[in-house]
């Protein structure tokens, strides 16, 4: 077994604390000096149903969930359904913490299961599979251990203690973590369960050789997910207003902001629907506050009309779209990248917006900041696209990444003194929407400022904002609003830091393009392919609009062919690339996945092998190849 990496999976029932237990375990591994990364799988259900979290930890950088895993901690599902006649399509849920998790367990892996709640006799061919795969199985009555020393719900703690004993970690680090969030009798009891379970398991005879890797960090790390990163980027750009309506997975960004805003002088509003949510953000922004809203696909659909209003009235606005598998309600807790075209083009008329799709937790912070800067400087809506994967996956990031100066600047806004000097109509109305600015940006005033009055309207309008449909004015205003996109493209190109990510040898023959959350898996696949003797590099694109034509053209020109990896069936990003560049149709093929699970690096390696080397179709393929034009 490789000593430099551990992938641990905790499985059980929804509502049994699997998520919080895994977070503590992840943090413990991070504190020992390892890089960590998590993957969450859960149903759209409050109580019961198969759920697991995978925690990957290594002495080197980890960028994805990895392939398969080494260690299964199978807990019970307190709210499982078990139709005794076996007729229901969902089958026996009680045993799913075991049955649903065996396929991906690596050879030589470890299984710890709660024998107080799970019976391997109900798992088909369990003993045969154990033997075949050389799994090491440790049945433990975690429930009784928890009951004996504390309460039954502490069986998660007992499971963590068992894991620690089996991979040679002591309990100290877990006790420290518990003390961070618990106190009094609750803490004492949990510590007792932890120590007793650890001691009990330590006395057992081990047959496996899996151990926790050891590592060290050069600098302090923090554990956070894409939702935290988006929220923290917003806070550091001076966003102090959020309006929203709950929807998975967007709710995470909304609740993180809501948790912090009151104590830092901001306002959070939970409102009646997403139309209101986006409209409130527009109202607050119009009144001079940096504001945001967001949703997931269905809620974002309701925001289409306010989004158009923000474009037409040139009201700065930042929206988050946390994608999940669609259409309609789709699969609420599963990731997909199927909303790209929806985000780019929804709302009537020619779209006039900016769209960023960060690829990692660190990028989510960067691009959230960029979104606010661009929105307020250029008076345009900016959409940050994340998905269920990026929004919920935890990763260790150096704390110094967040050690930056805040930027509360309102962008293109005039002070009262500047308003006095600025052009006004003869009637005294401020020329809010001048035809002439070269970069397309006509600075705005804020209600309450003296002599800055103007009308903001969703109708086409004169420089003062009054409704006007003459062809000359129409052309001047459309041209100016469109010029903003060109200015933004130049602005982004001139930044020290590109939103695009390059990975792999510059002179590689083959390319893989990816957008958004799948970037980490592709980077790991690129490493493996190059180790296997292939010549591959990656371009991870974040700027969806305005599209980085120069960057992508240069990349595509430099490779013989390019595999475009995305989580949808219609190859939306590849389509966008062809539309924007008008060429390379014969160079780009697609590797697609839409089964509700993100790409694993091995699937990208496999897909590359099939497409580029004409390898065999994999027997358990959950992916699909869409060949290049003309192929």
């Amino acid at each position, binding site marked *: 077994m490789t000593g430099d990496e551990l992938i641990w999976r905790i499985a059980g029932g929804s509502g049994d604390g699997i998520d919080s237990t895994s977070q503590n375990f992840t943090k413990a591994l991070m504190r020992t000096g390892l890089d960590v990364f998590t993957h969450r799988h859960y149903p759209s259900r409050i109580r019961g149903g198969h759920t697991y979290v995978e925690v990957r930890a290594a002495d080197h950088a980890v960028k994805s969930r990895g392939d398969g895993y080494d260690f299964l901690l199978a807990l019970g599902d307190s709210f499982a359904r078990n139709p005794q006649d076996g007729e229901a399509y969902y089958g026996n849920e009680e045993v799913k913490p075991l049955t649903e998790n065996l396929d991906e367990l690596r050879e030589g892996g470890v299984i710890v299961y709660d024998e107080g709640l799970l019976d391997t006799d109900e798992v088909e061919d369990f003993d045969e599979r154990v033997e075949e795969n050389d799994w090491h199985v440790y049945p433990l009555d975690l429930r009784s251990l928890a009951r004996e020393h504390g309460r039954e719900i502490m069986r998660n703690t007992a499971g963590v203690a068992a894991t620690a004993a089996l991979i040679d970690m002591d309990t100290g680090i877990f006790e420290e973590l518990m003390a961070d969030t618990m106190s009094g009798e609750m803490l004492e009891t949990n510590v007792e369960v932890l120590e007793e379970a650890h001691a009990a398991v330590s006395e057992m005879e081990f047959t496996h050789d899996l151990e926790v890797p050891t590592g060290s960090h050069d600098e*302090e790390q*923090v*554990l*956070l997910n894409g939702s*935290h990163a988006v929220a*923290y980027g917003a*806070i550091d750009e*001076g966003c*102090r*207003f959020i309006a929203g309506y709950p929807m998975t997975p967007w709710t995470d960004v909304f609740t993180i902001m809501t948790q*912090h805003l*009151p104590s830092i*002088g*901001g*306002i*959070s509003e939970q*409102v*009646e629907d997403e139309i*209101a949510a986006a*409209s*409130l953000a*527009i*109202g*607050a922004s*119009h*009144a*001079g506050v*940096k504001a945001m809203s967001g949703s997931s696909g269905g809620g974002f659909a309701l925001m289409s*009309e*306010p989004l158009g*209003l923000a474009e037409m009235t040139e009201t700065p606005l930042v929206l988050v779209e946390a994608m999940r598998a669609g259409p309609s309600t789709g699969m609420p807790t599963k990731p997909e990248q199927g909303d790209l075209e929806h985000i780019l083009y929804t709302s009537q008329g020619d779209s006039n917006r900016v769209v960023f799709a960060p690829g990692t937790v660190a990028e989510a912070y960067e691009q959230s900041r960029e979104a606010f800067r661009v929105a307020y400087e250029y008076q345009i809506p900016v959409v940050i696209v994340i998905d269920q994967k990026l929004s919920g996956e935890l990763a260790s990031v150096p*704390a110094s990444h*967040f*050690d*930056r*100066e*805040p930027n*509360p600047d309102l962008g293109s806004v005039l*002070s*009262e003194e500047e308003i006095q000097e600025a052009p006004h*109509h*003869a009637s005294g*109305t401020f020329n809010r929407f001048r035809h002439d600015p070269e970069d397309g940006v006509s600075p705005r005033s*804020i*209600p*309450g*400022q*003296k*002599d*800055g*009055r*103007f*009308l*903001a*309207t*969703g*109708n086409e309008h*004169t420089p003062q904002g*009054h*409704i006007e449909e003459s062809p000359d004015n129409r052309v001047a205003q459309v041209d100016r609003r469109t010029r903003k996109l060109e200015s933004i493209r130049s602005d982004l190109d001139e930044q020290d830091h590109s939103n695009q990510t390059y990975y792999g040898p510059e002179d590689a023959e083959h390319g893989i393009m990816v957008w958004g959350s799948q970037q980490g898996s592709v980077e790991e696949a690129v490493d493996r392919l190059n180790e296997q003797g292939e010549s591959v590099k990656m371009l991870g694109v974040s700027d969806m609009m305005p599209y980085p034509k120069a960057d992508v053209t240069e990349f595509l020109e430099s490779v013989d062919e390019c595999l475009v990896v995305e989580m949808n069936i219609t190859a939306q990003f590849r389509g966008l690339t062809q539309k924007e560049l008008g060429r390379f149709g014969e160079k780009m093929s697609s590797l697609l996945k839409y089964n509700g699970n993100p790409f694993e690096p091995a699937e990208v390696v496999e897909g590359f092998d099939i497409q580029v080397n004409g390898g065999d179709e994999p027997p358990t393929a959950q992916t699909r190849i869409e060949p290049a034009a003309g192929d």
Partner: protein
Amino acid sequence: MSKSFSAIGQAEQGEEIDREAFTPGIEPQATWCPGCGDFSVLKALKGAMPEVGRTPDETLLVTGIGCSGKLNSYFESYAMHSIHGRSLPIARAAKLANPGLEVIAAGGDGDGYGIGGNHFMHTARENHDMTYIVFNNEIFGLTKGQTSPTSPKGHESKTQPHGSAKDPIRPLSLALTSGASYVARTAAVNPRQATEILTEAIEHDGFAHVDFLTQCPTWNKDAKQYVPYTDVQDSDDFDFDVHDRQEAAEMMHETEDKLYEGEVLTGRFYIDEDRRSYGEEKRSTGEMPEEPLAERYFDEEADWERSYDLLDAHK
């Protein structure tokens, strides 16, 4: 007076406000049809502003879509002419962002009671300190005469050719049930009362809903011109306590029925001066800053918090 927004509180410094200051030099003449009730809303609003002592630069008028939505083209102030039915969520956020502004929202009966009905209910429920004027002409005018949420049962139009099978919505009752703390109805033909009611509504500290009957001479010729009207406060026929929720509810119900029987009842129907506005509620729970949030962005001395200082929970 605010340092960054010097228009706010101008009148308190003794500045005289002329109602003509609210006539925009750029578009002084409205495009409504001759005889349209909308002119009266504009006139009453211009009359109310000097009474409440607010200037164009400290007033934000947010409108929806329809003939009523053009109100802010003909009224000089900061303004947003938004989208159909969405004036309220935009307006209430502006008020939260800068409570120093005088925020007024306006729209028609289709805008406010139809497509924007959800926002009407929730804005009233939250009791934002703002005024909402609904131009109620019982018809969709700008789209040429379709049946609206307040059209009478049996109303025939191209979209309801056999006569509407729906009872009209009850706007006053809906406002009361939802939580509005000032509910009134006035009519275009009653300019003195309209100005008084708008003045009271704007001065009211909470969500003030004014159902403003505005005859449509083009698409709703059958409807009455809302004459004769009765002011329920002036009439001896009606005796109810405007501060009593039960009595107000009964009076509203009767008023809504009577409109379709040809009797136009107007006046104040419910006033609750004790209910705290949403802003006060939010400030009392610490969910809203004491100083207007918008001011902070203009304060060069302001100290901005950083996420770096929130990272302890992530270590």
